[in-house]
């Protein structure tokens, strides 16, 4: 039993929710999201973010727009779709439930 493995599993589901949540607040540029997630130690290597975003986009939970940037080529800004919002709501319900369970048991 490897604790790093378990931690990675926990982060995995959680990261999906956090990503959707961040994007639901405002259209987001992945590099900015990565910065925040790294500060919170939710991701270890940056490269893991891109397949995740790509999958959420393929599942139509997210979409993106190209926006001009002052310092280089246009950037992808992700936004959340209606389907994504519903998905996020479901995840948050589960999250709240989990949180309550953990709180009530660890008293």
């Amino acid at each position, binding site marked *: *039993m*490897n604790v*790093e*493995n378990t931690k*990675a*599993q926990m*982060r*995995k589901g959680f*990261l999906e929710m956090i990503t959707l949540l961040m994007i639901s607040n405002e259209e987001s540029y*992945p*590099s900015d999201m*990565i910065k925040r997630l790294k500060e919170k130690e939710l*991701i*270890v*290597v*940056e*490269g*893991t*973010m*891109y*397949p*995740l*975003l*790509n*999958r959420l986009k*393929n*599942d139509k939970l997210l979409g993106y727009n190209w926006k001009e940037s002052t*310092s*280089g*080529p246009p950037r*992808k800004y992700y936004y959340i779709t209606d389907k994504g919002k519903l998905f996020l709501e479901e995840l948050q319900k589960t999250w709240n439930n989990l949180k309550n369970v953990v709180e009530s048991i660890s008293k």
Partner: protein
Amino acid sequence: MKKIVNINLGGYPFTIDVDAYDKMEEYFASLERYFKEYDNPHEIIFDIEVRMAELFRENAGEHAILSLSDVNKAIKILGTPEDFSKENIGINENDKEENTTFDSNEDRNRNYEYRVGRKVFRDPDNKILGGVCSGLANYLGVSDPIWIRLLFVVLFVSGISPVIYIILWIIIPAAKTVADKKEMKGEPIDIETIAQSIEDEFDNLTDQFKGFRDSLRNKKRKRRKR
């Protein structure tokens, strides 16, 4: 003195040392293998490419010449396929196997250590003319290229035009990168085996140097390490 290369990385122009460029090529090749089974592998890889360009601009400045250590630093931040499988993140849900058990970590590892089978390359390390024969020997699994060379000599003597050798020389690409050489010999390619072979080569060099030094010091005791 070093050779440099100009590249376009995610839409940004960069000047980069040749060894750093080779490392980057290997890295992106490893990503390509890892993301092969995803829905839009090229989109993911391009996103990572753009991010790498941003990292370079943040850390090395806009007009610096990128070195191997800049590339290594960026790769460390972005992560290798090995890191991705450790994190278990972003794995395609459309994949047949659900990646929920710990054991399947090993299966993931196998993903990027893919076996290509062999590919024909000319072998520049072991050549007399163009490395066609040694390349073919590698491809066919013949341990010593001398047999293929003899075969060609016999063919030429028996009236088959040597033009065939020239044609092979032209159509078979030379094994340029470490990955090519691995593929030529049918060995699995991943960052680790590539690093290993570079280490081996280096060890080999040091050994040769030691042997040379020893033989100078002690002429009676001829010692050659290989």
